[in-house]
């Protein structure tokens, strides 16, 4: 089971007026945390909803935990914990009652664990949902999703609305989940630093498509800010191949390369660049460059 996939999307397409979600190929292995990044409206929530069959895709295939998401939908959903972006819990109910209610749907529900989670995240089990803060509602949703120890956790913007201390506890909880190598997490976030901290894989969605998806360490290894001098246009023409984006004036150029596999410095110099300087980039910088499509 070690190398089986937690989630796999192939040729998935969903057309809306003015927006198309198109995921050719996306997967990550069990025992890992996948971080989904992207600007507002890029398709993060649509993609997550599609895997939960809350958005019906036009074509393509989706497997969760190695099983077809439609043919074995009920079986799969017993093993999945999903927290949507919008809280849609009964406003009049309190955490204690909601736990009882939700527990009926999951044979693996663990009441002790549920109450321990409420305690850990400081959720008052007697307070009605409508009286909880935005962060409080999110924490309650997380407890409800975690209490049946799902093998796959799907979290849509779970950390927005949480203060830094609770965000830290929450990230620790995700790492606790994957202490078991057969369990996996996918979470989307605007907060790049949260993903940079704990994600093993990072996918970046832009305009309904996956613009970048790799092991986090590979992304950080490969992307570099580059500055150099190129005296003739022929040299620039050759160098372009190694630059995702660049700009420049007076023979001085700044760019970004996603190609720092071998010795980029030597490669660029041999192609006619002078004064080549490389500096590492944070995930946030890489994401901004890719979103903007310019340096």
């Amino acid at each position, binding site marked *: 089971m070690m190398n089986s996939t937690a989630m796999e999307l192939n040729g998935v397409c969903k057309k809306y007026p003015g927006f198309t979600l198109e995921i050719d190929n996306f997967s990550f292995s069990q025992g890992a945390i996948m971080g989904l990044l992207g600007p507002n409206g890029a398709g993060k929530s649509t993609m997550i909803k599609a895997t939960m069959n809350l958005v019906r895709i036009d074509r393509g295939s989706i497997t969760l935990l190695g099983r077809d998401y439609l043919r074995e939908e009920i079986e799969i959903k017993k093993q999945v914990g999903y927290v949507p972006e919008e809280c849609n819990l009964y406003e009049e109910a309190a955490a204690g009652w909601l736990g009882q209610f939700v527990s009926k749907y999951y044979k693996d529900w663990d009441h002790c664990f549920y109450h321990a989670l409420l305690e850990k995240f400081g959720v008052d089990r007697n307070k009605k949902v409508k009286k909880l803060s935005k962060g409080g509602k999110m924490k309650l949703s997380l407890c409800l999703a975690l209490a049946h120890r799902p093998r796959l956790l799907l979290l849509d913007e779970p950390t927005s609305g949480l203060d830094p201390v609770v965000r830290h506890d929450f990230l620790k909880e995700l*790492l606790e989940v994957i202490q078991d190598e057969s369990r996996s997490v996918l979470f989307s976030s605007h907060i790049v630093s949260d993903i940079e*901290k704990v994600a093993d894989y990072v996918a970046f969605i832009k305009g309904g498509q996956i613009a970048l998806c790799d092991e986090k360490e590979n992304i950080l290894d490969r992307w570099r800010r580059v500055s150099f001098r190129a005296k003739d246009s022929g040299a620039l023409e050759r160098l372009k191949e190694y630059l995702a984006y660049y700009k420049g004036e007076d023979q001085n150029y700044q760019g970004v390369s996603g190609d720092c596999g071998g010795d980029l410095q030597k490669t660029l110099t041999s192609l006619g660049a002078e004064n080549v300087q490389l500096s590492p980039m944070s995930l946030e910088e890489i994401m901004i460059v890719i979103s903007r499509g310019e340096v």
Partner: protein
Amino acid sequence: MLIFLSPQNPIPFYQQIVEQIRNKICSGEMEPHEALPSIRQLAKELTTSVITTKRAYEELEREGLIYTRAGKGSFVSPVDKAARRKAALNALEVRLRGILEEAIASGIEPDEVKDVFLYVLEELRRQ
């Protein structure tokens, strides 16, 4: 095992882990055959990703400082004094390379580098 990761440090997290564990092994703070935490435990302790701790352990394994038994975990290799010294020297070389590359890029001449290097070394020796 106490390890500190600093986000302000420009050295990547996995390398920070490698350096600190290497120091613990080379200084004898960690004994031969002592068990290391699992990559998942360590990731949780440090609130970092599993892939980061995994990479750190792979690097330490490549350096011969730790060994891994399938299903049992990772342990400190029984390295002798000479091997420890070699590992420490290798680590020094890697770090110096980074610093010297920067120095050369900012236009400092090799002789000047040498002067600064010897000056700092002499100062440290006097302390």
